[in-house]
């Protein structure tokens, strides 16, 4: 379970503080693959970044004993002048992987970049970067994977692989994901959190959540 306690989060702007959440308390239950649904600007990515510890709330705290991944967006933490291999090793070192070589092999197998793995990331196509980013995250055993529209950019083959990898892990691990494509959410998730005007609502049944979200 991930416990949000009295979270307040705003961004300063020219028009004053733009509140995303005001005194929000919420429990995100474990054991579910959750899709986060909400319109543009509702705060989905902010919620993600707060959960992952990439950002900190202005008030309140987030309590969990689960290990959460970093928010795997299109190319988080990937340096464009470094090769795929160097990026992989960087991520492994930051996350404290015991066996760098083994991890590297897993990423190579999953990302399927071929020779490009040893070329700078700036030479990658737009579909290859997220593949590397996703492979780096799935290569580590987290309890919860936070995935931000990554799977939507890959081709059919990559999506299939991603799905298999997550299913394989599903006994021990869960995924929380953001996507605007309902088909994708249906593929990966079984329940939903609808995010509207700074309020979160959990729906055990995904279809019910999607119906609520579309009715907004």
């Amino acid at each position: 379970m991930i416990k949000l306690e009295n979270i307040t989060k705003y961004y300063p702007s020219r028009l004053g503080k733009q509140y995303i959440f005001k005194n929000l308390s919420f429990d995100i239950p474990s054991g579910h693959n959750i899709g986060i649904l909400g319109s543009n600007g509702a705060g989905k990515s902010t919620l993600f970044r707060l959960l992952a510890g990439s950002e900190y709330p202005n008030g309140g705290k987030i309590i969990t004993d689960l290990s959460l991944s970093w928010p795997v967006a299109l190319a988080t933490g990937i340096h464009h002048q470094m090769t795929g291999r160097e990026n992989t090793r960087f991520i492994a070192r930051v996350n404290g992987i015991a066996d760098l070589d083994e991890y590297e092999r897993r990423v190579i197998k999953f990302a399927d970049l071929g020779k490009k793995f040893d070329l700078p990331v700036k030479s990658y196509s737009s579909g290859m970067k997220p593949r590397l980013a996703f492979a780096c995250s799935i290569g580590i055993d987290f309890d919860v994977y936070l995935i931000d529209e990554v799977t939507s950019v890959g081709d059919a083959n990559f999506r299939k692989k991603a799905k298999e990898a997550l299913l394989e892990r599903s006994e021990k691990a869960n995924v929380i994901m953001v996507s605007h494509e309902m088909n994708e959410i249906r593929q990966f998730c079984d329940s939903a959190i609808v995010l509207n005007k700074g309020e979160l609502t959990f729906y055990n049944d995904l279809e019910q959540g999607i119906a609520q979200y579309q009715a907004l």
Partner: protein
Amino acid sequence: MRLNNSHILYESQIMTTVLKRNKWEIWRDVIFALFAREIRTGFNDKFGLSWAIINPVIFISVLSFIRGSLGGPETHTIPTFTFMAIGILYIQSFLQTLGGSARSINQNKALFAFRQVQPLSAVLAGALFSLLIKITVIIVTIIIMYFIGIELNISNPLLFLACFILLWLSAVALGLIFGIAELFVKEIGKVRELVSRPMFFISATFFSLQDIPRQYWSFLDWNPVLHAIELSRSAVYSTYGSEGVSLEYLSGTVLVLCFFSLATYHICWKQAISR
């Protein structure tokens, strides 16, 4: 799930073992990873590391030629080349470490997505990288001085080292303050560049404090960089003297700067990266 028994690892679907690390180990790993990244991406142009060496050496040669033609081969009892070398290497170390530390926060902003990576680790990695370059440059300069036949002896090596380390520390501390401030207000980066430029002229780089009439010393001797440079010259040649500068003042200033920058950092780093 964490597996440590090697016999289980032969199974086909093995798990990637994530080490349970304590705080210090995480800091160490992150700084090392950032440092390795810095080395990899720091010199990406064709000149590479050689530029970091060629640039100050040309500078030193030209300036010591000018100063030499004005005042002879010796300046205040020490060879003009040595005099200039200390001035230029120190001020460049200061300015480049300051700039590098301040910029490293903004450059590595995307990496703060990993909760293990904090702005301070980026600053430390950047600062260690600058230190490594500068030590290389100093060693190469000493080798060059050996070949052009300048006498090489340091009468007080400990003082020399202390001055260099204190100078480096003050640059890192200031860089940390600026780097954090720049996350709040981007334009502070421009102010930093503006105010650091005159440092080149007021830090006794190509003059000595002794060249200045005594009644004007108070305009200059607030500056810890000047103390570091003048003290280092007196550490190399004891005949140079250290009138008007003191190690106590230098280390006191550095202590205050370090305290102030770490306190600022502690208060506001979380909000700084959450904007």
